[in-house]
């Protein structure tokens, strides 16, 4: 029996997959099973495929993806909590030929940064917002997010979210879709291979809108699990997400080419 070493296998003709060069080699700091890593990769793949590596400026949030700039190999700026759409507004207006995006979580985008989100959308800033909704504050240890479902347990809703006491989960994506300044609004997930493919198509469409100077902002929500925050295994978390998150946050396009989807 002849010995086959790994060196014999690593050959260009055997290559079936490689990560985009727009992801750095730094190991991702995200928990296994979390949607952030996949979504990072999709955004970077799209930028590479569109040939915009040297013309893209990204804005990172505060939250789990605060270090997104460590992984995304394009020019990046860190924002204060919630303020990414304000930074992106100025960057795009001062460099209208560049591709500008923000990458934000639910606490960042839908709680502390609500004003910046709504007004960037309402002004129709020609940027892309990628929004990860996992219904919890992951980085600070699993506190209630604006998108936490009713009854859902977090470290600040230990008996479950009671809407009468803590307010209702916020469908910010449906909300921004109502604004005339948004051009494309969609909700996706990245928990199965087919979902990943659909999410990538949506992300690509959003960036293409910007390249085509479409009259408005493109907004992509990605519903993700937060298995460590939800205190579940990654697989259980995905099942729980399908059973509980998707009915409240249904997957699919909400607004396409400036028209609400009926």
């Amino acid at each position, binding site marked *: 029996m002849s010995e086959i070493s790994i060196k014999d296998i690593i050959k260009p003709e055997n290559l079936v997959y490689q990560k985009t060069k727009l992801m750095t080699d730094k190991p991702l700091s995200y928990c296994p099973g979390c949607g952030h890593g996949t979504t990072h990769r999709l955004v970077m793949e799209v930028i590479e495929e569109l040939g915009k*590596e*040297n*013309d*893209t*400026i990204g*804005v*990172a949030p505060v939250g789990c993806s*605060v*270090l997104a*700039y460590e992984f995304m*190999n*394009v*020019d*990046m*700026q*860190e*924002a*204060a909590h919630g*303020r990414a759409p*304000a*930074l*992106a*507004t*100025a*960057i795009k*207006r*001062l*460099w209208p030929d*560049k591709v500008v995006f923000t990458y934000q979580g639910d606490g960042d985008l839908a709680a502390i940064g609500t*004003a*910046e989100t*709504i*007004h960037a959308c309402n002004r129709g800033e020609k940027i892309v917002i990628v929004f990860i909704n996992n219904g919890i504050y992951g980085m600070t240890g699993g506190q209630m997010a604006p998108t936490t479902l009713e009854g859902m347990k977090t470290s600040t809703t230990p008996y479950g979210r009671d809407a009468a006491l803590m307010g209702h989960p916020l469908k910010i994506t449906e909300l921004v879709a109502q604004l005339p300044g948004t051009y494309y609004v969609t909700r996706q997930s990245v928990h199965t291979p087919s979902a990943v493919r659909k999410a990538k198509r949506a992300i690509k469409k959003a960036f293409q809108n910007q390249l085509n100077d479409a009259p408005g902002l493109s907004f992509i929500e990605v519903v993700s699990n937060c298995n460590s925050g939800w205190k579940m295994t990654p697989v259980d978390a995905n099942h729980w997400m399908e059973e509980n998150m998707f009915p409240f946050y249904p997957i699919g396009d909400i607004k396409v080419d400036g028209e609400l989807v009926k």
Partner: protein
Amino acid sequence: MGELKLMKGNEALAEAIIRAGTDGYFGYPITPQSEVMEYLTAAKPWETTGMVVLQAESEVASINMLYGGGGTGKKVVTSSSSPGISLMQEGLSYIAGAEIPILIVNVVRGGPGLGDIQPAQSDYFQATKGGGHGDYRLIVLAPSSVQEMSDFVPMAYDLAFKYRMPAMILSDGAIGQMMEKVEFFEPIPRLTDEEVKARYPWATNGKPKGGERRILTSLDLDPSKMEQHNYDLQAKYRKIEENEVRFEQIQCDDAEYVIVAYGSSARISLKSVKLLREKGIKAGLLRPITLWPFPTKKIDALVKQGVKGFLSVEMSAGQMVEDVRLAVNGRVKVEHYGRLGGIIHSPEEVAEALEQKIIGE
């Protein structure tokens, strides 16, 4: 020599913003400086120089627009008044931490809280000691005339870009609302995108082909790296203290008593010096133009020259007086005089205060 115009300080500031080759103004209306954005939107510079003017949804958003825009190497500015500047402190701290050059103008009004809309100088601590979190500084320029509301705009930009940090013009409602004649500098063309890229290699405006990506952040979770970053910032600040102190001295050469005052208080005190000299009292005026870096060495020199006492005149409960005291270091008398909450002291009150508090018995 250009044409002389009669203008409000706020209007002169707005005109100077256009002339200084500004790429973007982002602001939110607040009295007593709303004329700035009104002037800019009426002038429509986007049709002439290509400058962007945007009314943001809040001061929080405007300062973060400066964070983003300044991070790309463009010349960006905002203006506001005290309560709005308080809202900007978060953004300023990030901007200082990420070492981004921007210009911010505070036309100060009475506080605390919503206070009133009359002139005050009670934001000195916030401006010079850092109103946001962390060890950082702003370069702070204090105009005392409408002419300086114009002249300090290009000067502040130069300093901000030279040291990659925020610069502030600390004015007040009196300088903003009064009209004087002003002669503008020749317009400075905006830099092209290519010039911006060539001059500011740190700026995030698209990764250079074949080069490394740029990251602008104030974050480093490794405390040893964050300590080093702080040392670097402090080294930069020491260099600025060494090289960028600006002040004006009037009749200080033979002065026995010196009033230290900036902005509109300096104008008022200039008259007080005249009133005191008429009475045979050898008074002088030291007007700090940079509030940070503060003219500490000049005050030290005045003490050594034989000045017997200093009166810090500010429309505040006594903020700059602390820096005067540090410079004097107990060698001679230092006192404060100033009206509060938007009331402006008169030249006579200031002269009287010097006689009572400094010359005394």
